[in-house]
């Protein structure tokens, strides 16, 4: 590859010749001896890729169902036992949002999996 020096004044002939010889020397490609079976040997040493299980699991769905049930139960418990209206509103809003969110997410997800 031709080397373009960076903003330099023209070199005298001797320096130019040295520069050309240097470029030739750097461009010389070394001869290498590669074992004939190198590619096979390397390919045989690579670890086998872990087998990916294609059996579908539903742990996430079960957890979501459980979450909905627990949230619903918590809503009832709060409704029955809380006398402080302010605390009740805050907790109720949080649980209700949680409940609606989980229900919508799960129904959309189940629909998309069909």
């Amino acid at each position, binding site marked *: *590859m031709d*080397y373009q*020096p*960076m903003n330099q004044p023209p070199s005298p002939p001797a*320096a130019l010749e*040295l*520069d050309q*010889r*240097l*470029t030739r*020397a*750097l*461009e*010389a*490609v*070394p*001869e*290498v001896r*590669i*074992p004939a079976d*190198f*590619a*096979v*040997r*390397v*390919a*045989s*040493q*690579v670890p086998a890729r872990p087998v990916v299980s294609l059996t579908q699991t539903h742990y996430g769905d079960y957890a979501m169902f459980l979450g909905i049930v627990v949230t619903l139960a918590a809503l009832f418990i709060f409704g029955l036992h809380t006398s402080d209206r302010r605390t009740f509103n805050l907790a109720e809003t949080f649980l209700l949002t949680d409940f609606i969110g989980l229900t919508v997410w799960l129904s959309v997800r189940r629909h998309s999996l069909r």
Partner: protein
Amino acid sequence: MQTDLTFEQVVSDHQAMVFRTLLRLTGSREHLDDLAQEVFLRLYRALPSFRGESLLTTYLYRITVNVAQDEWKRRRRDDRTHISISDDTSGWEDRLQHPSRNAEQQIEEREFQQAVEEHLQRLSQIERAILVLYHQEERSYEQIAHALNLPIGTVRTHLHRGRKKLREALQTHQTEERRVAWTTNR
């Protein structure tokens, strides 16, 4: 990269490039096989995260330079003696073709080549890597910058600085040789 056969093909296609780059970067034929193997094993491990943002060759150059750097660090730790690139039965410079040159010129050229190799090994790791990628592997500034994760300006600066150092070292080497020759002839 789905099967071993495909990976074997990748190794087969790029092994020459990896071997010659490692040879020039480490300056030794010792452990060349093991180092090349390490390059391809690292490539294999990195393949799942390879998203095709760059060419496989650029990615491979990056790994090769990293493996060579690890080898330099290991050698520095071991404090090993320097082994020349020509420490095999015959130097690779011997096999370079010099068409239509007489024997004296060939010897001179071989000695010059050997001097370049010696001084190349005295440069910093990054300068050597850039010089090898630019001149031997004919990579562009952009490709080198991408492979080494450096700005293009830095690549240009290192290339210029590396060549300057080499040129100065060779000039000193030549002056010294002429002085020795003159003294012995007297």
